[in-house]
């Protein structure tokens, strides 16, 4: 009986040690960064006027332009700037799309994707979503002379 009791004690101690070593080993491993997600941040200007001369404006990608024309009312859309970037979990990117427009994108494990927009250095809006971004996200507003600005966060495959 004493032998059985001792064996039981040894076995339970061993089991306890194994249980404790498991998570410790896991903690010493390097945390996984998670998959990389690629995006493009695009600043677009919408207007009913023709393309102004002397301004470095490009044509918007045709797929994106089709979407814009189905959703918004302006006749013409021009790409002011485009910045590709990639994100891992826990990473942030601050992108300057124009002298007046900055966008910060952060990917966190718990809170998902956060996109913050700054206009002329002032905070404008922040959007958080707990899923990976599958939609194209557009932050937009009115600009002078009945035109509009659009900041597009587009996932890239």
């Amino acid at each position, binding site marked *: 009986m004493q032998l059985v009791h001792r064996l039981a004690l040894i076995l339970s101690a061993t089991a306890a040690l194994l249980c404790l070593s498991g998570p410790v080993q896991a903690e010493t491993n390097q945390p996984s960064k998670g998959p990389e997600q690629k995006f493009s941040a695009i600043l677009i200007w919408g207007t009913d006027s023709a393309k102004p001369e002397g301004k470095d404006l490009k044509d918007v990608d045709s797929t994106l332009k089709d979407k814009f024309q*189905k959703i918004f*009312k302006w006749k013409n859309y021009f790409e002011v700037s485009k910045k590709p970037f990639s994100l891992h979990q826990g990473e942030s990117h601050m992108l300057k799309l124009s002298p007046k427009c900055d966008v910060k994108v952060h990917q966190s494990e718990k809170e998902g994707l956060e996109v913050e927009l700054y206009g002329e250095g002032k905070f*404008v809006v922040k*959007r*958080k*979503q707990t899923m990976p971004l599958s*939609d194209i996200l557009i932050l937009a507003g009115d600009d002078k002379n009945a035109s*509009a600005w659009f900041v597009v966060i587009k996932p890239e495959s």
Partner: protein
Amino acid sequence: MNNATQLKVMSYLDNELSAPDARQVAALITNDPEARAVYNELKETRELVRGNELSLTLKEPKDFYWSQIQRKIESAEKAAPRRASAPLWVRLLAPIAGAIALAAVLLSIQGPQIQPLTTHVSAMHEIENNPEMATITFRSESEGVTVVWVSSRETAQEPAEQFE
């Protein structure tokens, strides 16, 4: 002529200006045709009103009349029922109960200005904006686009014409 100058001319007519200001306005009226026209118009209006004002006589002396009004106001203020003060435990627990109720409401909603996705997988979305701004969130499932439209709070009252 701006509003401030017009007000000065009115005050001059009513003898409400200090001596230096009155001299300044008098000089303006003399030299500026527009100021002189405003002054003349105000003067004529005042004379018309005074000349045609209906006379109203009180039954009692003026002081007595106004003292009656004052007494009525004072008695009305005294007669207003005093709110019975709540028991101490109610006064202590009320803020806590309010905070709990507010927390329950906040937990029951999915965050401010949320537009629920129409996809088969639900997602939590939150919007935070500059207090001077207002936002409208719109999602086009067919186009796979989520739009957050930002406008200043002044123009946010106007109907949204930017969407087709």
